[in-house]
């Protein structure tokens, strides 16, 4: 019944085969997303957030592969589905939008046709009907004069308009889950605000769940109900989004929240030296033992250097992986 979550990821491990050896680019990744929920996955480049999304949608390609774990979508395990079954799932029930819509759209096909294709492919409509639906879909993402815009090619549209087209394609078949991988990173702030609002409103109307992936903790905390923070291939903290900013528990999350200049903080508190997170982000081939944040952590002790911390459930809800969490 409806009590089951829409998506459940359990102990997912993603292997990277660099020719000579196999390293885990992401491991022990577990989270769940309910129907219609908004969930954020936040982290820096190389933390494993994007490959996790690709694994969910069955788009991991060598040298990356799923090493272990279970991905359950609507109660069904999907990590070992055949290519055809995965294709059917993609677009129909799980859709994805990317950072750079220009590379995700086909440059030699009018955008209307690319939207219509979804109806033909997944809903068995005739091209005639599909073209009609495409105009409607383009109108739904607030593209002005959609009946003319359907004939435009991607390069004739601005970045914001292209991302609207991507959203129209992604939502064409009424998916249950929309994965948005850095959907607004390439856009200006005012355009970002519009795209985010559009995505948020359309998904809320249709009951589509959102998995949003971004490096921008502030944006994700604003958009999503719950947020998981990834560092060096592992989820280090998962919380309600307001909590994660007000009272971050993992030293890495605290560092992130403290280190970024926030609008208004200088006016309120004066210009203080920003709190830095020391050191560098480790490379996949060079993940430290124990807690992977330990070389950069002020609270690190011997246990952090040897033992991988397990997930502790917090009283206020959420979980954290740290031997010395707040």
């Amino acid at each position, binding site marked *: 019944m409806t009590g089951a979550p829409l998506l459940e990821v359990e102990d997912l491990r993603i292997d990277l085969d660099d020719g000579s050896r196999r390293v885990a680019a992401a491991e022990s990744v577990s989270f769940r997303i309910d129907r219609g929920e908004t969930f954020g996955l936040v982290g820096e480049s190389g933390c494993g957030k994007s490959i996790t999304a690709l694994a969910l949608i069955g788009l991991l390609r060598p040298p990356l592969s799923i090493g272990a774990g279970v991905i359950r979508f609507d109660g069904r395990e999907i990590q070992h589905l055949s290519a055809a079954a995965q294709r059917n799932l993609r677009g129909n029930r799980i859709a994805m939008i990317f950072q750079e819509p220009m590379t995700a759209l086909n440059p030699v096909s009018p955008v209307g046709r690319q939207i219509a294709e979804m109806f033909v492919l997944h809903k068995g409509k005739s091209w005639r009907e599909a073209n009609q639906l495409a105009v409607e879909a383009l109108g739904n993402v607030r593209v002005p004069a959609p009946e003319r815009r359907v004939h435009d090619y991607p390069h004739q549209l601005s970045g914001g308009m292209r991302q609207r087209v991507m959203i129209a394609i992604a939502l064409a078949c009424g998916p249950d889950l929309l994965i948005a991988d850095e959907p607004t990173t390439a856009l*200006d702030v*005012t355009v970002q605000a519009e795209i985010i609002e559009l995505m948020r409103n359309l998904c809320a109307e249709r009951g589509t769940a959102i998995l949003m992936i971004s490096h921008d903790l502030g944006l994700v905390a604003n958009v999503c109900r719950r947020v998981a923070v990834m560092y060096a291939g592992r989820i280090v903290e998962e919380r309600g989004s307001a909590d994660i900013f007000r009272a971050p528990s993992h030293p890495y999350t605290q560092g992130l929240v403290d280190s970024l*200049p926030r609008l208004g903080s200088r006016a309120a508190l004066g210009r203080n030296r920003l*709190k830095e997170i020391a050191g560098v982000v480790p490379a996949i081939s060079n993940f430290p033992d124990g807690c992977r944040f330990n070389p950069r952590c002020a609270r690190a002790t011997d246990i952090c250097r040897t033992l991988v911390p397990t997930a502790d459930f917090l009283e206020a809800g959420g979980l954290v992986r740290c031997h010395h969490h707040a």
Partner: protein
Amino acid sequence: MLEPQNGPGEARGDDDLILSVEDLAVHFPLGGGLFGRGRRLLRAVDGVHLKLKRGECLGLVGESGSGKSTVALSILGLVTPTRGRIVLDGQVVTSRPSGDRKALARTVQMVFQDPYASLNPRQTVRRTLEDPLRVHGVTARSEIEDRVATMLRHVGLRPEQADRYPHEFSGGQRQRIGIARALILNPRIVICDEPVSALDVSIRAQIINLLLELKDTLGLSYIMISHDLGVVEHMSDRVAVMYLGRIVENGDWREIFERPAHPYTQALIAAIPDPLHHAPLATTGGDLPNPLNPPNGCAFSPRCRYAEDVCRREPGPVLETRPDGHAVRCWRADEISGRVALALGEEAHR
């Protein structure tokens, strides 16, 4: 040749001023058929005035296509202005022969956005830092080595790391090398073009702190180009907001962020997501208009929620400077900022 500024320039009397951009315009002719028929003019920058004081950081914000990068390139001498002049340290640098790039290079330098693309992968750090000195006539081996080592320490790297290649460094370290390269000639002004936006989030604070430290210890002046308003607010003393090739608002950082007067500045600030609340983001409606075919009247009027008939009429509003030095280009600025102050007050009250 750099020549001392003649004539009644404003820059002359003001010793504090290190850079003044006066009525700068950069127009690019685009397309067009034979004999220039149908040729259109892109007004990338159209009548920009800017002033930068010694030791000050001027934030330059605006969406892509607003012309902020073209202003930077003009100051660096990489784009020839169509109109206007640039006075650097009391010397007019516009309309000089291109051979003077070297003299200009010792005054203005730049920190680039992408620390991966901005370092030559085939040169060691030492070579990257030594070559500029040699080009600028420093020949003594010991002096070169000294200056390179000092500069590396300034940016938080060890002199022993000088013989490595860029790929052996992380993104943050590469940006430190980029900063060292910009500072090795002891410039007075550094243009920082999105210096942290390509870096990992956990590294950004290190670079922001470093830039501010260096500004004080070396007595630098910055022009800080960024779309991240949090970073701009943190670093800037003054802020200029550009829209479609023009400055729409210019003032003290506190004025800009606490009492933004132009609807566009307000829209920029309102578009920043609030991490503590699920509140919807304020949207502005529509994209940046086509710069080849700018709207009549105020360029922001098609997207502005306060726009009235007067705003859509030609000609557009002028940049009006208030007594406190806060300049706004908006017909209804006084009305609007009053209303916003009221709204902010109400919110604070709640």
